[in-house]
């Protein structure tokens, strides 16, 4: 009785603490791929989690808005030119002569900006003016009819979202290892460059530490490389490269040091989804496109279409992904879609075909299970195939179709898109590596399948050997890199966490010591490796064997050196590319006329003063407390600083920061009467003492609630003043000029903010900030109170 699982697998111990960089980082800048936050309605993710519903809300309006802002020429080109004369964006009043034919847009712009600032606010109302404007122009303003454009944007959004959930374009992986032809120099084929459109053939020497040799052979292609597939036939390596609309094939001759030569390129109208290289015949490949066509591509003969079917094979599935691979018979190809696999005879594709695998009852599939990656395991056993789905892994035998020889639930978080087989010799287990893209998971499992024995029962004797093993992911090496500044750390984290894009393994035999090198490629183009060493003899002590896997806690000195070097290069790259990494903004010139953009002749006194203060504050390392006090009175300002607790504004900001702003607001509005009275008294008292002391710092505190309190409580009978609060140190000061209304207005106008060169995103915050004091009290009930509102509120009150 031999159990199906049981049996000890070979022991492969990780030799390093984490994955180690093989090559310096792909130097050019990398734009992080799309994330869910980018296209989802803000808060949708949280809500989704809370309600447990899976329907995500796409932020359609934001994307459409981005389009208008990023491509104004395409969106409004002709109308914009026509109406150019009739829209006025300046702040000044219109001339009487122009008033008949020109509208002033400034107010409208302000409204829009304010709308943006209040996004997500439950009390947000549509401004009539904006509504009026949009009703008026919706039908004629746009270059492309709005409905059509919206449809396209929506379609694209859905596509991007689907891609985000599961991107199958990189199925198969874009990394290939051409095994050594002499003893230890193999070749790694990988994409690189800014948009991963350069193909590199890099010689790698397998020694104690794998090391690159000479500079790589490089080819520039005109498309992002999605997949690199390789096979060795007759001592020569054939490398197939797939990008969306082009597929190419290279030959790497058998002689050592011979340069790879490109052989042929084909162009497809529909993106190709698969390219596999025949392990039987030189220069033969299988190509699939998303239109459902499968081709046998021979260098000498050309393309031969085997099948063209937009429908899936066994049941209806919307996915247009197709895959094809070779089988034990060089003229029979397997073809796959999400529902299963069939085998086709290339000599008579219409007539000769049989089903190899079907998602369904025969394989005991779960509901919703779909084929993710099929692979021909010819190097381990001539008639076996591997099929992975998002839940399980199956090994199939061509001779016994439909019924899997082996099934195992892999429990990976993301569906495995990459796999690599390392065949074991006679009596040894075959090693299969599975890799997922987004989560960078990497699993090693071993299985044993008897090679053809002469007894009949050998076909079902296929078993997993030992338990599967998890390997290091690229992101796992983060703790072993030297500590970084937070923003560098973040960049590094982002870079290392980039989805995986490929996987390859190399078996290295160094006398009795065998080791398995696993190469990983990330979407950013970085290549890392890890080594697994084989232990031929099991430790005799069972307790020792049990807790095997003493993954070394610290990287070896050589590895640490590599980490440092890699990091150095990475940081250098970061610094170089900094000018490019600004968030994409649109030029101001597109919105404003030249005159409006003109920098004022000389900085105004206000500017100068503000600058001076900023500089001073920076020198002292302190905070900017107010913009409008005379520099001669710093001691006062310091005194006014709240010494404990939080003033209302800080409290509000803190609350807003921790996302409980609504709650804060409710608390504020239902502020109990006693407290309000207390506040009122306090203020009155202080008023008397600090009359004439003015400070703009008040404008940084919320006076909104304050005012309403005042008006509400004006009829409350006066109470005796409470004892003095110890924190308040009233002081008479020289009167400073009251805050000029001009400043407020000037600050508030979004346009002026732009002119001051304050970046867009900060503009919003600032405006938000300032609008609090601007919107605050319409008109205080009495002049005394208005003065009071200007005074600083001691912290003891809040």
């Amino acid at each position, binding site marked *: 009785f031999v159990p199906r699982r049981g049996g000890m697998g070979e022991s492969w111990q990780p030799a390093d603490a984490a994955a180690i960089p093989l090559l310096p980082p792909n130097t050019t800048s990398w734009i992080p791929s799309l994330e869910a936050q980018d296209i989802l309605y803000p808060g949708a993710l949280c809500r989704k989690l809370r309600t447990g519903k899976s329907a995500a809300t796409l932020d359609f309006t934001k994307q459409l808005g981005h389009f208008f802002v990023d491509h104004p020429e395409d969106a409004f080109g002709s109308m914009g030119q026509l109406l150019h004369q009739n829209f006025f964006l300046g702040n000044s009043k219109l001339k009487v002569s122009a008033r008949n034919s020109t509208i002033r847009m400034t107010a409208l712009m302000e409204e829009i900006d304010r709308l943006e600032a209040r996004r997500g606010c439950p009390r947000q109302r549509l401004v009539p003016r904006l509504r009026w404007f949009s009703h008026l122009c919706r039908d004629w303003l746009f270059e492309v009819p709005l409905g059509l454009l919206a449809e396209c944007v929506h379609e694209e959004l859905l596509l991007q979202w689907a891609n985000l959930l599961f991107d199958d374009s990189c199925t198969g992986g874009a990394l290939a290892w051409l095994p050594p032809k002499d003893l230890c120099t193999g070749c790694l084929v990988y994409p690189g460059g800014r948009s991963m459109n350069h193909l590199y053939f890099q010689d790698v020497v397998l020694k104690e530490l794998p090391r690159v040799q000479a500079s790589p052979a490089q080819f520039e292609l005109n498309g992002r490389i999605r997949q690199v597939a390789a096979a060795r036939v*007759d001592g020569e390596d054939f490398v197939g490269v797939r990008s969306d609309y082009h597929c190419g094939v290279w030959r790497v001759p058998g002689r050592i040091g011979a340069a790879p030569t490109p052989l042929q390129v084909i162009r497809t109208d529909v993106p190709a989804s698969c390219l596999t290289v025949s392990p039987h015949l030189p220069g033969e490949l299988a190509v699939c496109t998303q239109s459902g066509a499968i081709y046998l591509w021979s260098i000498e003969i050309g393309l031969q279409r085997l099948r063209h079917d937009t429908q899936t094979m066994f049941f209806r599935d919307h996915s247009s992904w197709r895959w094809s691979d070779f089988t034990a018979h060089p*003229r029979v190809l397997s073809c796959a879609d999400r529902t299963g696999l069939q085998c086709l005879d290339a000599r008579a594709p219409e007539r000769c075909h049989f089903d190899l695998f079907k998602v369904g009852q025969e394989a005991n599939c779960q509901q919703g299970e779909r084929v993710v990656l099929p692979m021909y395991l010819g190097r381990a056993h001539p008639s076996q195939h591997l099929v992975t789905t998002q839940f399980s892994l199956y090994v199939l035998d061509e001779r016994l179709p439909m*019924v899997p020889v082996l099934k195992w639930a892999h429990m990976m978080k993301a569906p495995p898109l990459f796999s690599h087989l390392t065949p074991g010799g006679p009596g040894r287990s075959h090693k299969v590596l599975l890799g997922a893209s987004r989560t960078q998971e990497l699993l090693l499992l071993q299985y044993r399948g008897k090679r053809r024995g002469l007894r*009949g029962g050998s076909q079902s004797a296929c078993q997993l050997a030992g*338990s599967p093993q998890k390997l290091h992911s690229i992101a796992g090496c983060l703790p072993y890199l030297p500590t970084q500044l937070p923003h560098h750390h973040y960049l590094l984290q982002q870079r290392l966490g980039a989805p995986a894009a490929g996987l390859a393994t190399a078996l290295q035999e160094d006398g009795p010591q065998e080791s398995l090198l696993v190469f990983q490629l990330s979407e950013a183009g970085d290549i890392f490796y890890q080594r697994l060493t084989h232990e031929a003899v099991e430790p005799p002590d*069972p307790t020792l064997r*049990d*807790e095997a896997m003493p993954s070394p806690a610290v990287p070896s000195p050589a590895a640490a050196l590599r980490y440092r070097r890699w990091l150095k290069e990475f940081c250098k790259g970061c610094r170089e590319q900094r000018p490019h990494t600004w968030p994409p903004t649109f030029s101001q010139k597109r919105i404003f006329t030249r005159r409006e953009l003109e920098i004022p002749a000389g900085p105004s006194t206000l500017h100068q003063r503000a600058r001076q203060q900023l500089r001073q504050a920076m020198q002292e390392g302190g905070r900017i407390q107010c913009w409008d006090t005379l520099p001669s009175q710093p001691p006062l300002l310091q005194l006014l600083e709240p010494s404990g607790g939080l003033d209302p504004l800080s409290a509000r900001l803190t609350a807003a920061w921790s996302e409980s702003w609504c709650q804060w607001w409710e608390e504020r509005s239902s502020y109990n009467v006693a407290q309000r009275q207390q506040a009122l008294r306090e203020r009155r008292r202080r008023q008397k003492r600090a009359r004439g002391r003015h400070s703009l710092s008040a404008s940084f505190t919320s006076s909104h609630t304050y005012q309403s309190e005042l008006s509400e409580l004006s009829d409350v009978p006066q109470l005796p003043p409470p004892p003095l609060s110890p924190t308040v140190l009233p002081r008479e000061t020289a009167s400073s000029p009251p805050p000029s209304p001009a400043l407020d207005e000037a600050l508030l106008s979004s346009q002026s903010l732009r002119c001051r060169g304050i970046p867009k995103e900060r503009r919003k915050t600032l405006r938000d900030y300032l609008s609090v004091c601007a919107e605050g009290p319409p008109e205080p009930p009495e002049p005394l109170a208005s003065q009071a509102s200007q005074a600083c509120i001691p912290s003891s009150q809040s």
Partner: protein
Amino acid sequence: SSYEHKLDFKKSKEACLSYIQDAMLQKQWKRAAEFLTYYIESLEKDFSRESVGPSEMIWRMGAEIFCHHSGSSVKEFNSFTEQMKTLGLKRYLKISLEHTFYLLCNGLIDEAYQNLSLAESWRFGEYSATQDEEKKLIQAYKGLLDYYSWCKQKNILLEHGQDGFEDLSVEQEMHNCFRKAAVSLQEIIKIPGVWDLFVKCYVDLLEFYGDHNEAHQVLNEYAYNSKFPANPNAHVYLYQFLKRHGEPKKSLISALKILHDIVPSHELMIEFNTMLQKSKKRKKRRLGLEVIFAALDYAGWKENLKAWSCLARQVKQIVISEKHLDWIKQEWNSRKDWWPAFHFSRYLAKRNWQENESLSYEKAVVAGILLGKDCKYFKYVSHQGCKAQVKRFRILKKFVNKHNPVCLRISG
């Protein structure tokens, strides 16, 4: 609020699960076991409607951990599975089966048998009704264990039989086992599926008691019933059975013919080919040529010396007799665009010559005939062979030169 509490609970449950998985995948069984004890708490509020619920998870992970953990004992595993069985009534029989396998792996055959009979007699309203398939499987495995003890008794009897005295009680017990095994195995064989193991045992039992008709019928049913998945092994068993009982060539050939149709690359094809070659009928000889050509199409046969020598002999015969050249021509037509690259490249010539001289000889014969004397493979091998002063290569060269016009007719 309670809702948030629930959410937190769900989150921590998921985190715990991922910890266990992590530990298991890194073979840290002790850590995994520790986490599993915490995870058991998740059973308390099992609201999940997922296909794999926590109780099933616990069972699967627990069983795996028990298999590898150094401190685990059979006793502990027994109590664990008992608990799992009561927890997951829907999977009662599956768990029983797993339990049995564990016991078998630990060599406790009697306990396993007991366990199986217990499971077989388990009744629990609807639950037992829905697990009909598992029940059949349990029965079948019980039959298998019966068969095992039957084999043991048989061996004892045979040994004793040689000594010359018979043990009635042993014989009786053996018959008992036979009856039980036969009854249980019969059941499962009726359901469509791949039951190689059970069929083999059952046929063995029947054959021992001389019930050939029944055995033949079982194998026939297993091979030809269209409800069963196409299973090449079924035909192999049938063929072996027929061969054992000295059935006429005709029925053997028909059995293998079907096997050839399903799996042209089967190992038995060489046997089939030799059988067909000996036949006097032209049609059968023709089929033999087809069979060997088809087998050599497959990558797994590329370096099979026997197959190549079969083909070489046959092709040579045809060329010498100059009869039926069209047979070769027809077979070659569908292959001439890819066999040269697949079998007869210069690289392969070099490698075959270095690794296996006889193989390269046989292949050179075929290459010389099919592709003519200018074929790369033939040229290289014959040249090397002549250089190494091996006689058969010189003869081969002469042969091909002599028959070159014929060869050209084939390849042309």
